[in-house]
């Protein structure tokens, strides 16, 4: 090899390589299209039959080469699995199986076969046996017989026949089957060789074998032959569409399209089709009957138990499922209903039990109610009554039921009441009130009645229920209460409240008949001592007795009322004139008659104030007050008399009340002041003490003496108030002087009313506790002889109590009253103050001088101290001293002076009588 040739060789080589590479790539593009054809006859025959197809396809697609490969079932399966072929032509059953297992394209075309010059686009199966097998005539006769078939995968050679038997409910046992494998000629041989009693083959096989001289058709007979005019072959089964021609999934769609076009364009009865022993290819058939058959046979690919999804189950058993669930639902529903109805029953039972209880309770209430119960129907006929009804009315149930409640009417109720009752029942279904009814025995009684109209659920009137109680006792009690409210419990005569009514009535009557009417305020004189001496029981007895007497005096139309204590009011109407008061004298007489109390004849009198209407044309209250005022006047006038209120004098009375108010105000305003008048001891000439005398430092009228205002408050509450103020002030003054080194007894004047006030001693005690230094002996109380005698025993007790406290008493103005020796003996007053009227004139009047001497002597006898008032001159002092009088007071000594002058007066005081001056010279004034 030279160098010159080398490049040329290299060039050639590279050219060759290039061509070779091209050739390789060209060979790849031109790889033959492989068509797998199921060989159910010997392969050589199959190949020979279908070889013309290669030519047809090559003609329409010159760029491609085609190869037909006959395959038995396992080979074809393997080829499909490995995608070694591009198209497949197999029996429909196998097609479906392969399609399911490995995937195949939809059929491009369905083969149209031919037999005896006729088209056969469908095929089926043949079941045959030897013609001389008389024992096998029908499908049923195949039972237990040995049957030859190619394999269970063969559609025409097994499945269609099996399906036909299946549809006739003839079961093929695996043991009776003799499988030969392809080709189907073998199964024919088995029958001919008597290895099998019968055999399955595809339609057309027998005819082909006969044509090929391999079979004498007269030697066999077809079982279950189907006589279909125009179907050219022996047939034992249903027909199914002929074989499909299908691509594999990976086959080029363009190639598939061109192959399909070529197949469908094959000329019927042309050279090629004739060579292939077919009529050509038609549009793809519906292979679902095949699939259905395989499914029913449970042949592959439907041999496995189907995987059911709920959807499948639903699709297949929809009706049953619906039915089942409906039934289940129904059971549940019924169960629920049962449960509910049981629960409702239990509830109803409980309710009934409860209602029974309620009914029992209601019945029990009905039976045992203390109130009468009456039930009527809407027409007001009694339908039931309870025992209390029987008890109250006296009617038995039998007597009452069927009657109307009118049997109980007393006739004492107004028509208006019944009208009101029915109106309330009709509009409000309820009425309540008091009504007078009649018992069976005719007794009329009061009852509290409540009637209810009972309506049913529809609102219709069902019953009237009346509940009532006998309130006769209540009424009686009420009357008693009423009496108690209007009558005095002790005497049984009207009290203040009823008096008020009677007074109103009397005034009205007076207005009507134009006759005067008298209101008489009666107060017993000396009643309190009776009470004190004989006890309250005796006092009550006295009051009752007096009441009886007064009643006897009164006319029937007159009124006697007791206001309390010993105060009565009498009303006299229809007077003939304002001076027709003679009845009052009879009243006074009746009162004054002695009453026997504990064996003693006790006598009291009456003071009566009279107010006359219409002379005193005022209202009832005022009329009574005027009578009261007149009564006081009567008392002041000496008691045991009556005083007629004079409307014209009422002015003074009004002023009196105003004065009392003013005085009370003056006390509060510190307008009251005490002046002090010294008293001296006539035996020693020393100062005994001072008498506190009240003055009113009036802001307008100047200093007023007690004579100007004390009468205005005489016998009034203001007296007490003023007396208390005086005591307080005096004690306060005592303390002040004491603090200043002056121990000076102060005497104060206390009114009879104040002294007789029941709280006097306790009140005094309380006031004295504020001034302990004043005890004993710092305070002296002066009372008028007359006031002491008014309620003698009481005053005596008060004086004793006060003496025990360390407060001494003096009887003021002694000699002006009764000055009874009995009283003097029993009154524990330490001092007797001789009235200044006797003292002042004793120097000129022997009579008065005798009185003074008598009093002094008497006092001495009774171991009392005497003090003379009104000692105007030293002469008076000397005379009195000579008489043996213990002390004196008067202008001779000093006039009353303000408190702030007392201390100075005391310091300046020198005894007035010579005898005293010597004895007391050098003595300290302060004792």
């Amino acid at each position, binding site marked *: 090899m030279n160098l010159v040739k080398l490049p040329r060789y290299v060039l050639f080589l590279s050219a060759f390589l290039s061509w070779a590479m091209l050739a390789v790539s060209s060979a790849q593009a031109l790889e033959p299209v492989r068509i797998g054809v199921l060989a159910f006859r010997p392969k050589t025959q199959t190949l020979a039959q279908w070889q013309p197809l290669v030519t047809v396809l090559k003609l329409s697609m010159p760029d491609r080469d085609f190869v037909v490969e006959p395959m038995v079932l396992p080979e074809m399966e393997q080829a499909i699995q490995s995608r070694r072929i591009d198209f497949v032509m197999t029996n429909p059953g196998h097609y479906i199986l392969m399609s399911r297992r490995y995937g195949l394209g939809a059929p491009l075309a369905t083969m149209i076969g031919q037999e005896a010059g006729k088209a056969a686009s469908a095929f089926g199966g043949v079941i045959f046996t030897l013609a001389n097998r008389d024992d096998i005539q029908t499908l049923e006769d195949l039972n237990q017989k040995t049957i030859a078939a190619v394999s269970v995968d063969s559609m025409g050679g097994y499945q269609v026949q099996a399906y036909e038997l299946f549809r006739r409910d003839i079961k093929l046992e695996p043991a009776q089957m003799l499988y030969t494998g392809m080709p189907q000629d073998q199964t024919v041989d088995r029958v001919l060789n008597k290895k099998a009693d019968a055999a399955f083959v595809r339609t057309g096989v027998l005819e082909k074998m006969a044509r090929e001289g391999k079979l004498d058709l007269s030697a066999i007979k077809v079982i279950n032959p189907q006589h279909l005019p*125009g179907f050219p072959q022996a047939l034992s089964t249903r*027909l199914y569409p002929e074989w499909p021609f299908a691509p594999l999934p990976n086959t080029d769609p363009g190639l598939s399209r061109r192959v399909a076009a070529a197949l469908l364009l094959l000329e019927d009865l042309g050279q090629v089709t004739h060579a292939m022993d077919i009529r050509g290819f038609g549009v793809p058939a519906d292979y679902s009957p095949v699939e259905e058959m395989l499914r029913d046979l449970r042949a592959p690919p439907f041999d496995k138990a189907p995987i059911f999804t709920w959807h499948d189950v639903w699709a297949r058993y929809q009706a049953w499922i619906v039915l089942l669930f409906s039934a289940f639902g129904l059971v549940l529903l019924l169960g629920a209903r049962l449960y509910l109805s049981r629960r409702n029953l239990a509830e109803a039972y409980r309710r009934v039990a409860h209602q029974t209880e309620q009914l029992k309770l209601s019945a029990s209430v009905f039976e045992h109610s203390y109130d009468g119960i009456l039930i009527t129907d809407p027409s007001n006929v009694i339908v039931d009554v309870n025992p209390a009804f029987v008890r109250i009315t006296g009617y038995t149930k039998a007597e009452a039921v069927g009657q109307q409640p009118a049997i109980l009417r007393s006739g004492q109720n107004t028509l208006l009441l019944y009208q009101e009752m029915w109106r309330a029942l009709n509009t409000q279904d309820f009425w309540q009130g008091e009504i007078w009814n009649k018992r069976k025995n005719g007794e009329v009684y009061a009852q509290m009645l409540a009637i209810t109209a009972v309506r049913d659920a529809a609102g219709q009137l069902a019953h009237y229920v009346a509940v009532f109680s006998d309130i006769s006792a209540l009424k009686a009690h009420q009357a008693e209460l009423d009496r108690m409210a209007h009558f005095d419990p002790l005497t049984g005569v009207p009290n203040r409240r009823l008096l008020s009514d009677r007074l109103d009535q009397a005034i009205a009557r007076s207005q009507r008949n134009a006759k005067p009417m008298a209101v008489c305020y009666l107060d017993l004189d000396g009643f309190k001592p009776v009470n004190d001496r004989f006890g309250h029981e005796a006092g009550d007895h006295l009051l009752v007795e007096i009441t009886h007497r007064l009643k006897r005096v009164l006319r029937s139309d007159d009124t006697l009322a007791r206001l309390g204590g010993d105060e009565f009011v009498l009303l006299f109407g229809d007077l003939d004139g304002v001076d027709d008061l003679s009845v009052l004298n009879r009243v006074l007489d009746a009162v004054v008659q002695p009453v026997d109390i504990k064996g003693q004849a006790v006598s009291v009198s009456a003071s009566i104030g009279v107010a006359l209407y219409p002379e005193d044309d005022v209202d009832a209250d005022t009329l009574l007050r005027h009578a009261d005022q007149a009564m006081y006047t009567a008392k002041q006038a000496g008691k045991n008399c009556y005083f007629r209120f004079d409307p014209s004098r009422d002015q003074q009375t009004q002023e009196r009340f105003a004065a009392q108010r003013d005085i009370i105000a003056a006390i509060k305003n510190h307008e009251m002041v005490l002046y002090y008048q010294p008293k001296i001891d006539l035996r020693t000439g020393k100062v005994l003490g001072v008498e506190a005398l009240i003055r009113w430092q009036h802001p307008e009228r100047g200093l007023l003496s007690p004579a100007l205002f004390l009468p205005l408050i005489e016998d009034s509450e203001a007296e007490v108030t003023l007396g208390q103020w005086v005591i307080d002030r005096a004690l306060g003054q005592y303390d002040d002087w004491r603090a200043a080194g002056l121990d000076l007894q102060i005497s104060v004047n206390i009114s009879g009313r104040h002294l007789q006030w029941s709280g006097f001693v306790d009140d005094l005690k309380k006031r004295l506790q504020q001034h302990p230094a004043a005890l004993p002996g710092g305070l002296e109380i002066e009372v008028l002889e007359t006031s002491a005698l008014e309620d003698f025993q009481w005053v005596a007790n008060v004086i004793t109590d006060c003496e025990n406290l360390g407060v001494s008493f003096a009887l003021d103005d002694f000699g002006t009253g009764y000055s009874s020796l009995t009283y003097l003996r029993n009154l524990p007053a330490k001092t007797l103050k001789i009235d200044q009227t006797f003292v002042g004139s004793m120097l000129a009047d022997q009579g008065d001088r005798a009185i003074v001497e008598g009093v002094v002597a008497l006092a001495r006898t009774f171991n009392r101290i005497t003090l003379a008032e009104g000692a105007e001159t030293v002469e008076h002092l000397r005379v009195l001293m000579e008489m043996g009088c213990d002390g004196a007071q008067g202008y001779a000594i000093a006039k009353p002076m303000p408190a702030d002058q007392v201390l100075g007066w005391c310091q300046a005081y020198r005894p007035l009588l010579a005898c005293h001056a010597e004895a007391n010279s050098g003595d300290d004034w302060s004792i």
Partner: protein
Amino acid sequence: MPLSRRDFLCSAAAFSLLSAFVGCAQPRKLTIASYVWPGYESLYLARHERWLDPNKVELLNTHSARETLRAIEEGRADAGTLTLDEMLRARSHGVPLVAVLVFDISAGADAIYARSGIRSVADLRGRRVAYEEGSTGALVLARALDIAGLEQNDVVRVPLSVHEHLSAWQQENIDALVCYEPIISLLAAFDAHRLFDTRQMPDMVVDVLAIHQKVLDAGNQNAALRHVIHAHFKALRHITTNPHDAFARMAERLGLSIEQVPGAFRGLVMPDWQNNRDLLAGSQGHPPELLVGAQQLGALMVKLGLLNIHPDLDGVLNGRFLPEEAPR
């Protein structure tokens, strides 16, 4: 109504104890009279496939609608396969028939064929037209003339029973023929062309299973009725899913070759069970669809002089024997 043969036999049997026990004591089969029409073939397919129990249902072959009606009137049959117009006419004559199943709706399977030279219905004026009197053929002819603007008397009517149609055509004594499958498929071999068919009168020719009201009233055939309807739907499913097998089996009775059978079905709409329900039972809130069709048909028949008065449609449809789920 004359005593039918069957009734006579039963009456006679009443005198024979043996017969009384063996014969009349047995429940009577539901007898359905039917003539050859592709839409009715489902019954025969079902019988062949053993979906129709011969112990329950008997198919009585007739040659025409008139014969079928006569069988029902005479009591030889309980029911018949008829068109709705035939049924309405029977009802107007006092035969209370009730439609319980729709086999098919003709959409081209009833037609008027004419010899060459007659180009349109209008050309039929004065021509001899053969039709089956008292049957759908009369309706089709009347409607065709109506549409073409011809009076009913503008043609020469030649009443012929359906089985005489082909021979009459061959004898050339008629110019046109109102006929239906399978005659139509057979006419293809002759010089005949289609002038008019039921596609031009949609939903007017409806083939139904018509049962006598008294059978419904008796109630003893309800199970058999459900059975036959169920079998029909099984067969219908077979026809639609495996026409190869179904058509092959019908060919003999239809008198056609296997290849001709699909053509005979071409002019039929065969409603499945659900459509049947819509037609006869109606769905919720909707009346049966066929009721509307029947009203229109009745009105048309009155207009065309085929009925004297508007038919009473009360109870004409009864969908309660139809399956309520897909038949298996």
